[in-house]
């Protein structure tokens, strides 16, 4: 059996599937606890239900794109390991870069034909070691950090809320700025040689979001409000597919 064949054998599926199942159980426990606590402090069931439906509908499209990451990595690492990494702790943009960097360290290219068992386990361990720091920080500092934040916010002062909105606006601005920069200054400044596709996709999704928001507000369509983000993303992606065909 080839190494890639061994990496997709039932026993590897069992190891990786077991960890994915553990994390799924953890998610269910957190969800049930949050739901019960919400009800116990008097939150409206309809509100909690809206949170569940909008979060579920929003997550489908990004999850499909994450599946593409599994497919992309499966040629070199088999199917179970990328499946595990992108279901648990991993990030789409991170996994490929680190896997490639790790492959260089063991002296191979990231491909199925060059993969060996020692190279695979070294790459797999490096992928885990590189991304675990967020979880370690949470393990040791979450309680202290969130405790300090809630003391300084005094249980939800109005500026605490504004600060979080501002932080998110700053975050979105960084990404939109990077799309503009990728188009205008690809490689060196003012070349206009980069791809405008990310910028145009973002613009298309924003326009569709504007239309859906206006429709939801005008006709008081609460369900549309819940699905507007998922629908805008879908429209943006459709726009990217159309533009990709002509650009």
């Amino acid at each position, binding site marked *: 059996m080839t190494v890639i064949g061994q990496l997709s054998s039932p*026993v590897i599926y069992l*190891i*990786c599937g077991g*960890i994915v199942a*553990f994390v799924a159980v*953890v998610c269910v426990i*957190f969800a049930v*606890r*949050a*739901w019960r606590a*919400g009800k116990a*402090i008097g939150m409206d069931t309809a*509100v909690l239900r809206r*949170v*569940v439906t909008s979060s579920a509908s*929003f997550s489908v499209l*990004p999850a499909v794109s*994450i*599946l593409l990451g599994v*497919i992309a990595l499966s040629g070199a690492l088999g199917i179970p*390991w990328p*499946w595990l990494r*992108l*279901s648990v702790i991993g990030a789409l943009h991170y996994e490929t870069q680190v896997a490639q960097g790790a492959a260089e*360290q063991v002296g191979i290219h990231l491909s199925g034909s060059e993969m060996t068992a020692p190279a*695979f*386990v*070294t790459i*797999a*361990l*490096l992928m885990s070691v590189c991304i675990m720091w*967020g979880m370690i920080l*949470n393990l040791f500092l979450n309680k202290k950090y969130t405790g300090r934040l809630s003391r300084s916010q005094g*249980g*939800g002062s109005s500026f605490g809320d504004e*600060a979080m909105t501002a932080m998110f*606006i*700053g975050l*979105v601005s*960084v990404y*939109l*700025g990077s799309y503009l*920069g*990728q188009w205008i*200054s690809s490689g060196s*400044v003012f070349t206009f040689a980069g791809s405008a*596709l990310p910028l145009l*996709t973002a613009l298309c999704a*924003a326009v569709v*979001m*504007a239309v859906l928001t206006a429709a939801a507000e005008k006709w008081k369509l609460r369900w549309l409000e819940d699905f507007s*983000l998922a629908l805008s*993303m879908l429209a*943006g*992606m*459709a726009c990217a*597919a159309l*533009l*990709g*065909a002509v650009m």
Partner: protein
Amino acid sequence: MKREEIISRYERGTHRLGKTVSLITLVLLIGAPFLIGSTLGAMPDLGAVARGFLAVGLVWTVSSVVEFLVYTPMLGSGGSYLAFITGNLINMKIPCAINARDLAGVKAGTKENEIVSTLSIAVSSLVTILVLALGVLLLQPLQPLLQSPALQPAFDQVVPALFGAMAYKYYRKNIRLAVWPLLLMSAVFILLPSLQSQTSILIIPGGGLAILLAWLWYRKGKKQ
């Protein structure tokens, strides 16, 4: 039971559970390569792992610190434990939690926000796990469709589509606040193209500027 008692019990339980499952997940993730290695008859080259960490891991370590400092206040304690275990923060968990907060009409820093954020991240993670599990099961028939050249640009542009939609939602209500970070960040990425691959690090100055402006206007509004 009083609200304070319920919240305090919930918070204690969240930290206990969060720490325990984070620790178990860490052990599982570090242990898995060794366990897989034992079935393949090979063990990791720890020297190569150390060299690789110095070469590619340090950047991600800095990025993890930034993510922890920036995202934990947005997600609250439960959401933060869960988001760092399940991953895909920027392209999924953060926008999902922010969107849920908005729909539920709760304010950051409140216990209601903590609950909404935890619930949204748990649901989002379960959907991801389900989609990936189904995708892996149906990989053979799905592969030609998902990898078709016509759909490739669509799947490559999920994050821009997400941020475009979120930008409209947040900019329309805060356009005065959004203009300056957007102008500054655009100028940075246009004039310093080498930073285009460092977006996660630039979230600190971008977010910092937005918070500073929000604080100045907040104080001005209070004085008036």
